[in-house]
């Protein structure tokens, strides 16, 4: 084959601007950089929070102050200076009476993201809780959901309107002491989403939140709390894109899911934070703690497509506490250029007849490092537990790394655990076959990679799957060589 496709094409594409990189200029209200008790009191006061929540934050801060940043993950990065971060930023204009009041520039941002509210309202039936720089500015479909008793609002609103629910569940799945970033988040979380599905209610639409980091130097500390009451069902979508920035941005979110008896939660994420440029400059640090607890007969299913961030540290997990509960984790993680990802899951089997499935597809391109790290733990009392794990790694270049670190801990003789992993290079014979059918190399790789990830992509809601497929192809452009 001639020189062009291999080398020049790769170069052409390396320089391609970050697809969704753009910045919205909205006046923001920021507090000075740094973290201490006064800052936490200020955040809490600005949000008019009850005393118990301030106590929660202050205790978290105390715990965090005594912790050290973990370094066991297979990632290397310059540790953030936590005193150089501003812990609160809110668009000055906080609430909009009607859609017309919304800042036109923000509307433009949403248009670029392809999530114009009108269109969404009209076409897809997706309710959107749009979070820009920590404070919710637009929520839709609230009334319709309210008819069913579904609460879907910003975390701050939930604190004001449903304090009893927040108080009952906050920190019950991810305790403040859990890890460094979870403790930090518990101290300074700005806003996020809250969702409650009442008993026996099947949420009729996909609930969706689009996150965006917007303010330079602003850490993003989202807090999500989702409670599915007995025998209810909800599918929740979370997607992120971020504007291009030169400096590193810290993102330390906490997501807690509570799936009560017989409930089912599907939680899908497409993560496309700014990954840094081709030299590894800039990009988001994504240190996320996501965990759900399953009560009797309930299900939590995590699906994630991770293509962004300079550094990812993320293990959406399930505590299978109730008998006959099910945990699922479906993941595609793509790393290119200098990205580093250490991601996977923890399936903690405590109840009897609990089942878990893990399917992880890692794709390493450029000079990136991509690790799967997963724990399957079968407790002494978890009779008849089942786990199936398949984790595959695909290497696109000889400069990238693909790693697998499974932890399998079994204390019960009735468990059946199966773990399989493979690592291989993208099939040259497959590419050739496509080429012979007239499909060019870029498209061939897109096809093959999407095929390789199909088992995971299939788990996404339809509209998300399309976006995810596009993202995969974009993320890997010019990556073979």
């Amino acid at each position, binding site marked *: 084959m001639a020189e062009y496709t291999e080398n020049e094409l790769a170069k052409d594409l390396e320089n391609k601007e970050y697809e969704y990189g753009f910045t919205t200029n909205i006046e923001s209200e920021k507090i000075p950089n740094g973290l201490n008790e006064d800052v936490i009191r200020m955040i809490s006061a600005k949000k008019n929070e009850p005393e118990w929540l301030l106590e929660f934050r202050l205790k978290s801060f105390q715990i965090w102050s005594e912790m050290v940043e973990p370094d066991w993950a297979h990632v290397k990065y310059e540790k953030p200076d936590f005193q150089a971060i501003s812990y609160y930023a809110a668009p000055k204009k906080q609430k909009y009476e009607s859609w017309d009041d919304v800042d036109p520039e923000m509307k433009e941002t949403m248009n670029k993201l392809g999530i114009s509210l009108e269109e969404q309202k009209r076409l897809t039936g997706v309710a959107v809780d749009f979070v820009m720089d920590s404070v919710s500015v637009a929520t839709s479909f609230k009334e319709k959901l309210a008819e069913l008793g579904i609460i879907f609002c910003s975390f701050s609103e939930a604190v004001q309107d449903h304090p009893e629910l927040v108080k009952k569940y906050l920190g019950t799945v991810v305790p403040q002491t859990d890890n460094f970033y979870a403790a930090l988040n518990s101290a300074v979380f700005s806003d996020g989403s809250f969702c409650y599905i009442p008993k026996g209610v099947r949420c009729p639409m996909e609930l969706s939140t689009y996150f965006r980091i917007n303010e330079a130097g602003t850490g993003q500390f989202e807090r999500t709390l989702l409670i599915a009451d007995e025998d209810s069902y909800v599918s929740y979508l979370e997607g992120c894109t971020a504007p291009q920035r030169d400096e590193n941005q810290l993102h330390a979110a906490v997501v807690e899911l509570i799936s009560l008896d017989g409930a089912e939660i599907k939680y899908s994420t497409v993560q496309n934070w700014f990954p840094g440029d081709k030299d590894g400059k800039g990009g988001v640090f994504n240190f996320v703690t996501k965990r759900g607890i399953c009560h009797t007969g309930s299900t939590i299913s995590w699906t994630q497509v991770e293509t962004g961030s300079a550094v990812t540290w993320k293990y959406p997990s399930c505590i299978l506490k109730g008998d006959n509960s099910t945990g699922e984790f479906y993941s595609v993680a793509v790393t290119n250029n200098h990205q580093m990802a250490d991601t996977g899951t923890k399936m903690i089997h405590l109840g009897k007849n609990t089942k878990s499935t893990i399917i992880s597809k890692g794709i390493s391109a450029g000079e990136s490092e991509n690790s799967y790290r997963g724990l399957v733990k079968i407790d002494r009392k978890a009779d008849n537990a089942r786990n199936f794990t398949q984790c595959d790694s695909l290497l696109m270049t000889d400069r*990238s790394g693909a790693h697998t670190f499974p932890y399998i801990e079994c204390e019960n003789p009735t468990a059946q655990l199966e773990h399989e992993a493979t690592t291989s*290079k993208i099939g040259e014979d497959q590419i050739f076959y496509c080429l012979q059918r007239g499909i060019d190399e870029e498209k061939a790789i897109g096809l093959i990679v999407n095929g390789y990830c199909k088992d995971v992509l299939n788990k996404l809601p339809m509209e998300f799957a399309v976006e995810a497929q596009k993202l995969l192809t974009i993320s890997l452009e010019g990556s073979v060589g």
Partner: protein
Amino acid sequence: MSVTEFVKNLQANNSAFGKKSASLLEGKDFPTTRDEYWKYTRLRKLTKNEFTQSGKDFSSDLSGVWKEDYSNRLVIVNGKIDESASKYDLSISKGIQSIEGEIKENDNINAGDDQIFSMISKAYAEDALVIDFNNQKERDLLQIVFVNTRNSAIANTLIKIKASKNANARIICNYISEGAGVGFTNTYFNLEADENSNIELVNLQAEEAGTFHIQSVNGTQEKDSKISVWNFSSGADLIRNNVNIRQNGKGCDTHVNGMYYGEEKQHIDNHIFIDHASEDCESNELFKGVMNGQSTGVFNGRVIVRKDSQRINAYQQNSNILLSEKATINSKPELEIYADDVKCSHGSVTGQLDAKALFYLKARGISEERAKKMLVSSFLEEVIETLPEDELKNYVVSQMVSRIQLLDHE
């Protein structure tokens, strides 16, 4: 727990590496479960004991241990060679001084993992062996019996095995114990496989309860060489095997296989590290375990394919059966890949005996105990089958059957 406290009764040897090792150990603590490579192994039950360097009188009858066709025989008692019980015509240098220059104070390939126990061995070893295999056609056969007489005996032994170009070596190591009380065997092996050579090391760990066994095998391979290590582990309260092999030349082949059986509160831990530092190489790991009683089995297989080590095939398999409600298995098969033209895979399966098969056998009039034995044996058979000769397979089963009650032996 400090190492200094643990070694307070021990006399360091006077080799250069021994002195350096002893000084490196000063102020060091034993690893804890917070250390990644000791995550599943608590050392307290070993380190709380006081051990002393002991004499080399022993009373065990070794006649049932010797494999007849192995004309080269060595007996090492509490870390010291018993010349009267040994006979051989291989090129063997003995004594601490013989190994000076052959090993360093920290030559572990997987640094940080088993360093402390290797260093204890190097600092406090009372004897050492350097065995040169330089045959060009026939395979040299060597059997080494390690006896620990307990009564607080610590046995630190250093063994260097060199296979020169085209040489073939097969070594069987039997670990046995006698006496009463606690005993600790801490053996350090350094394998050096020159071009196109072949080293086979078969470890039969069958000490009694009350003993502790830590073994570090560090091997380096040159072009077209082959190293195979087998760990058959049962007995002892705690067994930790570290096998670290680095492939330095093209066309290397490495096999590390093992089976382990635990009862009561036994703890058996295999840590295998294969470092693919050259191109066109292969590695294979097969470990199978059966855990009974309150025992714990640990498998940590780590494969690294270095940058530019293209065309590597690496395969790891760990399968476990839990027979009892209080048994535990921890399996951690890791892959770290920095080259793209590779085929690497691993599998880990944990379960119980096939209930249908058990029922079928019982329905044919076979007792439950007998049926279990048949199923366990057939499960472990795959590991035994990786041994090179039928005669050796039979021998290994005959030696392990006293420890692994559930192993079938006609």
